[in-house]
C-alpha cells in the first residue's frame, strides 16, 4: 500500500523481483527423483553398481546412458502430445477426459484409410474397406484423423460453452462415446498392416520428434499470441474475460478442438508406432495426460501453468516409470508411486496459491 505513495513515477521495473517460476520446482523435483534412483542403484545389493542415467561403461563419446534416456522420452512422448492439449483445457479451468478413447477411435478411423493392399504378396487380411481405401497417400488418413478429432473437440466445446454442461460431465460422456465408436468402427476387430509411409509417422524416435516440436510450437503460442493470452484470461477470471470483450464461448470451443486434435494426432502416431489399431488402445491415457499437466504445475483451478511445465511433468512420469524398471520393482509399485506424486503435486500447488493470496 505504501508503495503507491512513493517515488516520482513509482514505475520501477525490477527484474530481480520477478518470482521464482513454478517450472523450476518441477525441474527440481525431476532432479531429486533422478538422484534418488541413482542413489538406490548404488546401494541396492542386486544392482551391480549400475548407473541410472549415466554411462558407466568404458565409452567416452557419451555422458548419459543414451538408450535409457531415449526410452524415457519415447515412453511419454505420445501421452505427452495429449498432455499439451489437455494443459490448455485445464488452463481455461476445464478438463478433458475424452482424450484416451479418442486416441483409440482416431487410431481405428485413420488407419482404416492407411492400410496397404498387399502384405507379402497376399491381400491384407485385416482390410476393413475395399481396394479403394488401400495404399492411399498418407496425408489422407492424417487429415481424416485430425478432422475427426476436430469434430469431437467442437462437440465437447459446444456442450461446455453453449449448454453450460460441466466439462467433467461433457467429456465423460464423450469418453464413453469415443470408446463406443472405436469398438463399432470395425466391429471390434483390429486394423493392421499400414502403408510404409503411415508406419513412418511413428517409427523410431518420431513420436519424440512430434512431441517436442509440438511442445515448442504450443509453448510459443501460449506465451506470445492472443490465443494464449485469452486462454489464460478465461481460466483466471472468466467474467472479466467476457466483460473485456473476449468471445469466451468461441474461444473455449477452439481450445477443446485443439486439445482433441492433439489427442487425435497422438492416436495416429500410436497406431503408426504399433503398426496396428485396436479399440482398447489408449486406456488411462487421459488420466496420465492430466497427471503430466498437474505435476508440471498447471493448476486445476485455471489460469496458471505452462507448456514447459507440462513437458517437465511428462519427464517426471517417464523417469519414475523407467526408474522403477531400473531398480526392478514391478508395475504395481509404479502406479502407487505415481499416484502419490500426483497428490503431492496438487498439495504443493494449493500451498503455493495460499501463500500468494
Amino acid at each position, binding site marked *: 500500500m505504501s508503495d*503507491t505513495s512513493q517515488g516520482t513515477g513509482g514505475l520501477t521495473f525490477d527484474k530481480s523481483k520477478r518470482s521464482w517460476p513454478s517450472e523450476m520446482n518441477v525441474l527440481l523435483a525431476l532432479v531429486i527423483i533422478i538422484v534418488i534412483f541413482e542413489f538406490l542403484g548404488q546401494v541396492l545389493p542386486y544392482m551391480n553398481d549400475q548407473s541410472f542415467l549415466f554411462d558407466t561403461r568404458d565409452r567416452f563419446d557419451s555422458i548419459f546412458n543414451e538408450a535409457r534416456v531415449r526410452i524415457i522420452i519415447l515412453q511419454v512422448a505420445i501421452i505427452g502430445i495429449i498432455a499439451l492439449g489437455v494443459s490448455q483445457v485445464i488452463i481455461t479451468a476445464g478438463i478433458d477426459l475424452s482424450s484416451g478413447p479418442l486416441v483409440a477411435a482416431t487410431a481405428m478411423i485413420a488407419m482404416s484409410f492407411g492400410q496397404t493392399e498387399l502384405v507379402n504378396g497376399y491381400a491384407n487380411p485385416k482390410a476393413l474397406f475395399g481396394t479403394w481405401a488401400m495404399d492411399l497417400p498418407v496425408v489422407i488418413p492424417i487429415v481424416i484423423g485430425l478432422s475427426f478429432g476436430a469434430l469431437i473437440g467442437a462437440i465437447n466445446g459446444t456442450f461446455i460453452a453453449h449448454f453450460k454442461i460441466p466439462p467433467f460431465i461433457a467429456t465423460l460422456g464423450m469418453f464413453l462415446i469415443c470408446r463406443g465408436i472405436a469398438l463399432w468402427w470395425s466391429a471390434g476387430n483390429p486394423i493392421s498392416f499400414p502403408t510404409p509411409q503411415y508406419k513412418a509417422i511413428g517409427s523410431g524416435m518420431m513420436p519424440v520428434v512430434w512431441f517436442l516440436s509440438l511442445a515448442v510450437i504450443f509453448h510459443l503460442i501460449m506465451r506470445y499470441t492472443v490465443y494464449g493470452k485469452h486462454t489464460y484470461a478465461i481460466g483466471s477470471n472468466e467474467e472479466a474475460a467476457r466483460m473485456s470483450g473476449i468471445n469466451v464461448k468461441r474461444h473455449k470451443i477452439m481450445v477443446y478442438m485443439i486439445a482433441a486434435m492433439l489427442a487425435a494426432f497422438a492416436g495416429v502416431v500410436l497406431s503408426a508406432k504399433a503398426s496396428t489399431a485396436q479399440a482398447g488402445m489408449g486406456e488411462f491415457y487421459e488420466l496420465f495426460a492430466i497427471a503430466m499437466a498437474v505435476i508440471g504445475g498447471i493448476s486445476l483451478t485455471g489460469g496458471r501453468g505452462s507448456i514447459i511445465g507440462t513437458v517437465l511433468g511428462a519427464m517426471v512420469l517417464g523417469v519414475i516409470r523407467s526408474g522403477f524398471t531400473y531398480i526392478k520393482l514391478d508395475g504395481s509399485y509404479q502406479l502407487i508411486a505415481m499416484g502419490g506424486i500426483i497428490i503431492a503435486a496438487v498439495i504443493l500447488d494449493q500451498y503455493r496459491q495460499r501463500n500468494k493470496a
Partner: protein
Amino acid sequence: MSEELVLKTVDLTKHYGGVHALQGANFELNKGEHVAIMGDNGAGKSTFVRQITGVEQRTRGTVIFDGQEVDFKGPIEARESGIEAVFQTLALADHLDVPDNLFLGREKTKWDWLGPFRLLDYKAMRKDTMAALEKTGVKIPNIHNTIEKMSGGQRQCVAIARTASFHSKLTIMDEPTAALGVQETEQVENIIRQLKEQGEPLILVSHNMRQVFDLVDRIVVFRRGRIVANLLKIETDGQDVVAYITGAKTGAEYEGAA
C-alpha cells in the same frame, strides 16, 4: 440541447424472471457532465449500468448513445462505440500482469494475418501502460507483478487506469472507491477530476455523499428499481438526497413511481 446529449434512455426496464430490477428508467447525460447515481443496495443502480454497457440485455426500452439508438450485444460493442466501464466486481484477471489486464480483449498485435494466433506486441503494450499510469498518476511498483499479488487499492487503480487510458465518449464507474483507503480514494478522485477537466462525461455510482457532492454536477437517485429524483448539485443537499434514497421523499415528476 438535444445535440448536447451523450446518453439518453427511455423506459429502460430489466426483469430477472419475476424480479423487476429496473423499471422505466428515463435518464439523460449531457456532454462534459458528471452525474452521480445514488440509491440503496438493490435499488437498481448496477442493473442500470449493466444494461447501458451491454453486459446484460434489457427487457424493454431504448438507449440512445451519441445521437444514435444503440442495442449492444455485449460489452465489446459498447466499448467500441466509446463506453468505458469500471465494474463493481473488478474485471481483472488475477494471474495476468498490469499490461495484460490493461489491454485484455484489445491487445496490440503484430502479424494479424495469423488470426487468433497473431502475435502480442508486448513492447508497445508495456510502453502504453507506463504512459497510461503516468497520465492518471497511478503508481504501481512493478507492472509485471500479477494482479493477485497487489493490494485492493492497486487493483482498483489498475482497473481505473484501464478505463481512463482509452479515449472514450463516456466513462462509467461503479463504486470505484468502495474498498479503498484514504490515499487511494484520493488518487481515484483525482482521475475523475482530470476527466472533468478534459470534458469527458462520467456516470459515477457511489454511496459516498461527500465524494458525490465533491465531484459531480447532478445526482440521480434510484429506489426500488425506479428513478425517483434528478437533482442539480447546487439545488440540493445531503439531507435532501438521503430523503429520496430512503423513500421519505419522491420527486414531483416521479410521483407514484415508488
